[in-house]
């Protein structure tokens, strides 16, 4: 249902499992949005990522702000500014969740396209309203635009970025561990799965990030 049956048998089990879990994560209610809205956000993000005829960064694909953010983050992430974000009629929790949904679908789609397998389909949205599940305590962050789990700014900005929403944070780091490496493995400069060396991994990571003009 999720990853196509023609997927190559050499795809690691934990990678396939993390991608399937991420798609199911999207299709379940989140802290501020129901599952149907989350699937819509993911569909817009996926289409924006894949299209060869994208809208301009300043153009809105929808009158709904959550879909506008999804499109711009998926296709023109490097053009997003704090002023643009602040002008949207969305709460910090909603914005963090939209980021969480977009980054739940983009790597799965990107991977499928890269290896040449059938693009994944999103599961049907699960029933139920928003969960209202947030970190027990959040704090204002200097290193991110949105509040994060308290205490803020004790970790690097990307590490705390989604921490106000535990379900999005968990999915992010499950994906990272399967696609790249876990935080424990990251401490080992010789880490390898027997394929790419650590240096080769960083070459791919660095060049991709440069092309995306992400200067974090």
């Amino acid at each position, binding site marked *: 249902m999720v990853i196509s049956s023609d997927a190559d048998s050499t795809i690691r089990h934990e990678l396939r499992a993390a991608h399937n879990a991420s798609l199911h994560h999207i299709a379940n209610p989140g802290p501020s949005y129901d599952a149907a809205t989350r699937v819509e956000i993911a569909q817009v993000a996926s289409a924006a990522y894949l299209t060869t005829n994208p809208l301009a960064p300043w153009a809105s694909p929808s009158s709904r702000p959550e879909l506008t953010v999804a499109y711009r983050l998926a296709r023109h992430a490097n053009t997003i500014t704090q002023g643009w974000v602040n002008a949207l009629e969305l709460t910090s929790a909603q914005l963090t969740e939209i*980021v969480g949904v977009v980054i739940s679908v983009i790597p799965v789609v990107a991977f499928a396209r890269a290896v040449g397998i059938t693009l994944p389909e999103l599961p049907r949205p699960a029933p139920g309203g928003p969960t209202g599940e947030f970190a027990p305590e959040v704090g204002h962050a200097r290193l991110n*635009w949105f509040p994060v789990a308290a205490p803020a700014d004790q970790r690097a900005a990307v590490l705390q970025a989604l921490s106000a929403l535990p379900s999005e944070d968990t999915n992010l780091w499950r994906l990272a561990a399967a696609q790249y490496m876990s935080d424990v493995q990251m401490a080992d400069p010789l880490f390898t799965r027997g394929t790419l060396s650590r240096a080769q991994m960083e070459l791919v*990571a660095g060049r991709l990030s440069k092309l995306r003009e992400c200067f974090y």
Partner: protein
Amino acid sequence: MNLTVDLQTIASGQGDAGLPHGSELVAFAEAIAGYDEHRLTQARRDLVCATSHAFMIDAAAVAANFEMMTRVADGTGAKFETKAHEARTALGHQLGISERLQV
């Protein structure tokens, strides 16, 4: 085992960064970041021919991870602590992006 990466290759996309299969990896990463399906198919084939199917899949997974992490950073306005600015400025010069770095 080579543990160094020539940063000029990351900045320019030229060369192999002094790594085995570096040029094929760069071409694959560039094709993933682009929108030309023929180029992507060719880059995938070239990498598999030079290495293995499992190697290509793990390279694709790393690229997918940074399609994710770049959006986490850009979508949440991620910044470094001021104390990291000096080291980042030096790295930024090497990568040719120093004018884009924020404190």
